[in-house]
């Protein structure tokens, strides 16, 4: 009697859905995706693309101008600027990516958990997070790094912890809404563990909201690593990093040479590209309700 049975066609496969999704992407999102893909390609294949080595001193002339041999000239030690730029993509992007993932996992898990438990535990975690957020990030990072020494693991860890507070806030707020729904209660009655409920019942439902935050935070992490390197406490030489490349060659600007602006522009372009993609994803996520 239920006439609506089989009224709808069986859902298409994941691949078809992904392809269809891609077809509906606006121009900005496609542009963003292409740019991100180029960055990823350069980062992964840096050793094959770069004309010279990362720390190889190839010229006796520091701050050499653009030439056929050194397309973007050389830096303060006579290393090939273009090669450093390419290797810089690899270092900066991979560190930012790892940091984002750690902060995402930590913040979301804690946020969803906190929302589900409620009561004292929730209050304790939330107030601790408030305290962390109230200290200016850059000062906090500088302080920690000067105490524990500025190694890359330390850098990643401290930025990840500080960024996770943002993920915590947003995922906790979203999870509070989901936690009041019947299917979460049904899972409790079924006897599921809190971890299982967090991961299987709540997390997939708050993900679209957090996804947008993920892209934004990636950009901010990228920028703060660059800023720290610019200040000299981030990624240490001789590793190539865009922020430190700006600092080391900043003097050139006074001479009317735009070379040091290129790594800065690379940072900006990546940030814009990621945001284009994220914006579109966010749009999709908010429209999800229409489709049910």
């Amino acid at each position, binding site marked *: 009697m239920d006439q609506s049975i089989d009224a709808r066609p069986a859902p298409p496969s994941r691949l078809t859905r992904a392809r269809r999704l891609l077809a509906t992407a606006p121009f900005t999102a496609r542009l963003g995706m292409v740019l991100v893909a180029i960055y990823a390609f350069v980062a992964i294949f840096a050793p094959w693309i770069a004309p010279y080595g990362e720390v190889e001193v190839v010229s006796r002339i520091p701050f050499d101008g653009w030439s056929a041999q050194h397309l973007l000239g050389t830096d303060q030690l006579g290393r090939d600027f273009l090669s450093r730029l390419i290797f810089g993509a690899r270092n900066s992007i991979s560190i930012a990516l790892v940091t984002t993932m750690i902060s995402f996992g930590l913040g979301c898990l804690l946020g969803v958990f906190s929302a589900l438990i409620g009561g004292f535990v929730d209050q304790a975690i939330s107030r601790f997070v408030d305290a962390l957020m109230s200290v200016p990030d850059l000062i906090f990072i500088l302080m920690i790094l000067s105490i524990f020494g500025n190694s890359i693991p330390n850098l990643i860890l401290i930025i990840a912890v500080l960024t996770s507070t943002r993920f915590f806030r947003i995922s906790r707020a979203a999870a509070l809404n989901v936690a009041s729904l019947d299917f979460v209660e049904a899972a409790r009655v079924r006897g599921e563990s809190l971890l299982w409920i967090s991961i299987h019942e709540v997390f997939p*439902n708050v993900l679209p909201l957090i996804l947008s935050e993920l892209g934004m935070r990636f950009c901010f992490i990228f920028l703060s690593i660059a800023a720290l390197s610019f200040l000299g406490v981030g990624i240490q030489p001789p590793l190539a990093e865009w922020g430190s490349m700006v600092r080391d060659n900043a003097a050139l600007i006074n001479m009317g040479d735009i070379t040091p602006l290129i790594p800065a522009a690379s940072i900006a372009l990546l940030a814009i590209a990621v945001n284009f993609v994220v914006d579109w994803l966010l749009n999709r996520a908010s429209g999800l309700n229409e489709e*049910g």
Partner: protein
Amino acid sequence: MAVEPSPAVLEIRDLRIEAKSSDSWSEIVRGVSLSLRKGEVLGLVGESGAGKSTVGLAALGYLRPGARASGGSVRLLDTELLAIPEEERRRLRGTKVAYVAQSAQAAFNPVHRLMDQITMVAVDRGGLSRAEAEKRAVALFTALQLPDPQHFGARYPHQVSGGQLQRAMVAMAMICNPALIVFDEPTTALDVTTQVEVLISIRKVIEEFGVAAIYITHDLAVVAQIAHRVAVLRYGEVVEEAPIASIMDHPEHPYTQSLWAVHEMPANDPAAEGASAAALLSIERLGARFGTFEVLSDIDLRIGRGETVALVGESGSGKSTLGRVIAGLKAPSGGRALFDGAALPPKLRQRPLDLLRRIQIIYQSADTALNPRQTVRAIVGRPLALYQGLRGAAREKRLIELLRMVELDESHAERLPGQLSGGQKQRVAIARALAAGPELIICDEITSALDKVVQADVLRMMIGLKERLGVSYLFITHDIEVVRAIADRVVVMQHGRIVEQGEKDRVFAPPHEPYTERLLASVPDMAVGWLDRIIAARVA
């Protein structure tokens, strides 16, 4: 109730409305024609999604965002509503044509007094002075039988009951003496005993003020009391239109006939007493409170193996709370509960997994009870993995068995809840409960969100499942028709206490407890004239 011929107040001709879904327009109203004369009430009946509300709103010249009229005409008195600009249409709304929504709670602004909200349109657009408007409002309050009509308007929305608020909204609609009122399921959200009062009031003002009305509902019994004519809508088309008496006696269209489905379900034969002597759940002197407020007191309840106990009462009677106490979601404040001879631990955490398996709960709204991001396979498969440790092919086999049991099949396993109809979603929720292999299933209003036809199917299926599996049901409901169809025993609750319990036939047969009497008397008959008899009985 005869209506003399007079010029049409509303004339809808071949109305077509399209709605945008993802990227394409699809027709949701397909050539509807209706006409309505002064003093006439037209019932608009159909299931959810049939286009009732869309047609009702079109009578106000209003289209929901994302919808457009692609053809036809809507004439109100001498105005073609689809041809005039939105600004002029807005001026007509509230003055010439008015709307009464389903939820008065949502329609009133909680921070303003009722009188301010009710008279606003009359003062702004109706050309009445504030004093005139207030005088008229008080007259309407009186006609609507609201308590203390002189001072009723001074209250805030939260200070009056749901039924009173619904009547206040009728007053707001009537304030400018409109030619047409559209009632959109005005009593659906109310309890049966309140529904009668609101129905009587609505009937009275419609007759007194001679207004034409469209009454949208999915409940035929209600429409029989209030409408002169009924139009049955399905998939955006009028499948049958006839005077109320003839449609009640001889529904022509097969679809119209199917709307009687639940009503015509035979009452089940209650399990013979003694056959279910083994008590599965017995509760003694149980109480529960929220803070200092006592929601449950002195509850004695016994559910036998394979027995269906219906828990009946109005909203706020504590029936859902009792279900939650049994499920372990709310700790009782006192009393004793035995499940299968052993004490039932009050808190969820104290219950072993196997005990959780044996008591399952099905919720009213499958929309919120199913995780929208899990496929049917994941939803139904989880209890199989958790309780029975089934994996791989064995789990898949059992999964398909379960889906078949609830009259779905393996083609549904891959779908997300959003890709299923309301009835199918509730079936998935039932399959999830069955997957645990329970002995007691708490069914909290599981059919009240479903359309009548689907409701009957689900109930029939639940009866069949009980016979096959020997489970017990605690059926929480406010719908007497559902109780008739499914219950062995009936427990009537009011104000957190059980006022009457016993075999179904005994509870439903006179003499009744006063409250049971009132509850039973409030359920509209599927026949014309029931409300007239009630009104006559009150006058006498």
